[in-house]
């Protein structure tokens, strides 16, 4: 048996993230005692229409979020309890609504920092409506083996340690949330566990007092003793003492009262819960509470630590007088184990999961990213540059100083080629249309292909093929290319020619050959090819794509990475164009009619649809 919450309790949670967390904890308890889900609905207008995923053991439930309590109750008429998790400024309105809703019998509020006046009013509304209002600042209510409201009881392991899967003989009422859990543990450790535990909250005016709950426990035949944890401030403990003294009570009462330290502290120094404030003339002091309770017959140890002994003593007395008949303990191994998440099981090495992807280049699971094992910051510190990062991430190698200089030059001379080319123009049109940087730059990027910038890979690939398959046989190579590929990628230019050479090509070739010791079989081969092709036609020169492709092959980059250099380099230019257009506040552009040849049909009537 229990008070307040039992197997029939079904709850709505009013509030956002904290409420969801509580619902998940409550579902763990539901799983432990094999009870259907306690939380049936959420009310939280900002997330109306959403469903929250809640696991009861391994079973996944989707719980609806409603904009109003009325709607939640209309669709879930079985709800009889409301838990308030919403912020202090809206807590009063939410709780009032819940107290005035038919069918809801208990409203428990976890919200902290609720104005006292609001709490007093809610208390009154509850009385007028014949409802119970628990809190504010209540961690929740626990009925062993029956129902958990809120996060009271903590983690799953603790629920078992505190015997909360089955009813005991002790009731618990505390102001403090942390101590409700502690006291449940003490009842399990030194007795047979609890029937119900209620945290009433540490505010100055809790909605429901010790006496109300004491009377409920008195009426619950399974509860044989009640542990109260109170503290300085207010008169609820004195009232509990009065209740105990008033007439002979069935239940035994054990209490711990906090705040005696204030007797020796400098005057006016107060701390602890909001309600833990001594009144004038010692009214509500911890000492007066302790004395009142002791006079009324309660056992009150002088420290909290003394509770263990007191509970044990009462438990043994109740057994020896036959009031409690000890039941055989349930073997904890028979209790269900909470299914762990994949991550948890993997940590323990008890499951194998086939990875979805594999990476061989980088890892940022540590304090900072590592590129093929090297910490990024260490690379910076050791004087490495962006070329080295490219070398690592694209080829898993650290280039030499000479190689780095070549890579750097390739990127520098490819970074931009003016606004007129497809890529830059695409990015500019995007910028003019008011498109953001990443999208506008990708518009330019989509232009990269066979006719624009995309020849680097193929040039490198076929010249490499030539070096391997047709060494010293340029004619053979060209004839194979003609038969199998078509024009040689990397050869030919629209405007440049032997007489009007491409300065970038000349520079790169000259730099690589005269200023580095790089072995350049592929570049040499391409230059030999150029000799033959330019003899046929003046503009069939080795172009910049071909040059870069060959050098990169000579640098030992994989063939399929080669276009990456153009993409990377040109991204710098396209970003530049986007920024440039934005700086100028460029307006939307469209083609003038005179730039378009409208080779379309004459204007004509639309025929009837057949």
């Amino acid at each position, binding site marked *: 048996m229990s008070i307040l919450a039992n197997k029939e309790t079904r709850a709505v949670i009013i509030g956002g993230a904290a409420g969801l967390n509580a619902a998940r904890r409550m579902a763990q308890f539901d799983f432990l005692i094999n009870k259907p889900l306690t939380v049936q609905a959420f009310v939280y207008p900002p997330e109306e229409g959403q469903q929250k995923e809640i696991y009861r053991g391994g079973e996944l439930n989707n719980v609806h979020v409603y904009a109003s309590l009325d709607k939640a109750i209309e669709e879930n008429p079985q709800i009889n309890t409301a838990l308030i998790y919403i912020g202090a400024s809206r807590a009063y309105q939410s709780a009032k609504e819940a107290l005035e809703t038919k069918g809801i019998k208990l409203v428990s509020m976890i919200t902290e920092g609720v104005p006292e006046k609001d709490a007093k009013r809610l208390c009154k509304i509850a009385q007028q409506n014949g409802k119970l209002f628990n809190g504010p600042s209540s961690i929740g209510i626990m009925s062993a083996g029956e129902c958990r409201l809120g996060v009271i009881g903590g983690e799953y392991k603790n629920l078992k340690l505190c015997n909360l899967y089955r009813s005991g003989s002790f009731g618990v009422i505390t102001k403090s949330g942390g101590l409700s859990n502690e006291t449940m543990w003490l009842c399990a450790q030194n007795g047979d566990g609890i029937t119900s535990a209620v945290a009433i909250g540490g505010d100055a005016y809790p909605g429901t007092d010790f006496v109300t709950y004491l009377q409920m426990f008195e009426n619950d035949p399974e509860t044989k003793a009640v542990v109260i*944890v109170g503290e300085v401030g207010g008169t609820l403990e004195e009232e509990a003492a009065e209740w105990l003294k008033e007439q002979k009570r069935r239940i035994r009462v054990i209490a711990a009262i906090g705040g005696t330290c204030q007797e020796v502290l400098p005057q006016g120094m107060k701390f602890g819960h909001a309600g833990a404030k001594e009144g004038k003339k010692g009214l509500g002091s911890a000492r007066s509470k302790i004395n009142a309770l002791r006079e009324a017959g309660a056992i009150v140890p002088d420290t909290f630590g003394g509770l263990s002994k007191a509970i044990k003593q009462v438990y043994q007395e109740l057994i020896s007088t036959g009031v409690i008949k000890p039941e055989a303990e349930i073997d904890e191994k028979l209790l269900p184990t909470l299914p762990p998440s994949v991550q948890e099981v993997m940590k323990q090495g008890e499951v194998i999961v086939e990875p979805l992807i594999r990476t061989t280049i980088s890892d940022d699971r540590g304090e900072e990213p590592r590129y093929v094992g090297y910490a990024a910051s260490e690379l910076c510190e050791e004087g490495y540059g962006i070329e080295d990062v490219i070398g690592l991430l694209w080829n898993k190698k650290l280039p030499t100083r000479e190689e780095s200089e070549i890579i750097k030059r390739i990127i520098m001379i490819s970074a931009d080629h003016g606004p007129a080319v497809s890529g830059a123009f695409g990015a500019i049109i995007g910028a003019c249309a008011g498109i953001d940087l990443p999208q506008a730059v990708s518009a330019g990027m989509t232009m990269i292909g066979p006719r624009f910038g995309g020849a680097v890979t193929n040039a490198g690939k076929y010249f490499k093929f030539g070096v391997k398959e047709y060494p010293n046989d340029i004619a053979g190579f060209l004839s194979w290319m003609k038969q199998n590929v078509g024009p040689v990628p990397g050869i030919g230019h629209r405007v440049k020619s032997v007489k009007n050479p491409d300065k970038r090509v000349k520079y790169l070739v000259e730099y690589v050959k005269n200023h580095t010791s790089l072995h350049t079989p592929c570049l040499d081969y391409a230059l030999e090819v150029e000799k033959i092709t330019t003899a046929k036609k003046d503009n069939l020169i080795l172009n910049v794509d071909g040059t870069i492709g060959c050098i990169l092959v000579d640098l030992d980059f994989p063939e399929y990475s080669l276009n990456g250099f153009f993409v990377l380099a040109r991204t710098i230019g396209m970003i530049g164009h986007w920024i440039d257009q934005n700086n100028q506040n460029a307006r939307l552009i469209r083609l003038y009619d005179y730039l378009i040849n409208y080779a379309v049909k004459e204007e004509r009537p639309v025929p009837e649809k057949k």
Partner: protein
Amino acid sequence: MAKILEGPAMKLFNKWGIPVPNYVVIMDPNRLEQLGEANKWLRESKLVVKAHEAIGGRYKLGLVKLGLNLEGALAAAKEMIGHTIGTSVVRQVIVAEMLDHDEEYYVSIAGNRDGAEILFSNKGGVDIEDNWDSVKRMFIPIDENPTIERLTDLALEAGFTPEIAERVGKIASRLILCFDNEDAQSIEINPLVIRKSDMRFAALDAVMNIDWDARFRHADWDFKPVSEIGRSYTEAEQQIMDIDARIKGSVKFVEVPGGDVALLTAGGGASVFYSDAVVARGGTIANYAEYSGDPPDWAVEALTETICMLPNIRHIIVGGAIANFTDVKATFNGIINGFRESKSRGYLENVKIWVRRGGPNEAQGLAMMKKLQEEGFDIHVYDRSMPMTDIVDLAMNA
């Protein structure tokens, strides 16, 4: 309870039509001269100058000066501003009109669980405690404010003459409006004075407590409540309060000079029980501390370092109940980092550390704590099977 200073209280009284003497609050004495040019009452009335700070027993400390003219008030203000009392510095003074009056009354209102109670006495002033039998009281249920007639009747009952009772009833009704609308927890006016020649009333001195949790609905609360610990906060306390204001969960810290047992305890309820246990076993606490609501580890670390710096401590009690949702491993991580840092800076010499805790990830947290033994800490670690405050007994017997 959040006590506010006289200036803000007077402002709220004024807002609700409760008669107050003329007053000004100043930080710069020279401002008073200019205010004197602008306000006739400053030039023509007798004045009282009081330190506008949360300092108890101001009269005895010479921080209340009565019966002054403007010049005298100026001199008093100059003397008081910048004056240091313990850890507090006088930064503001309130200069008010000293109303010549014929009688002193007592009116107060205090909240209780079901509403509030209003108290009247026609024997107010410094001797009110001795005249407590003269006090008449009335219970005011929440949202059921009494009529002026009923309040007048109460005043009559308290022995006021009919003419004055009617006025007191009216003032009390406004006081109730102020109490109710300003989320007050208590207001005590002592004395409420009357000058019979022109039937002028004024609340000469008042103590007002407001519910600071209700500040979200009071746009005109442009003041802060005074320190709840009976003195102004120390720098270390202020630093922890600043952290507290920024985080999820909370960290709290109050220094108690002279103690040798430091508390690094968790939870609003348990922390008080730990303080009690130290006192019950004849020890003296060096501080009160509390972390709760699963605060971030860096905040707990800062709290730890602050506590390690407390002078002359012999024990640190790292106590706590079995947490519901505060992660023991994460918060202990903060504490451990704090201990290490403090040790490296030369603190924790000859300090014994006593640990007892439970809750989420308790096994890992306690194991980590225990490992500090290997680093030379004098640390004693216990799990949930140790009764909560019994580590204090162990420390006291060590």
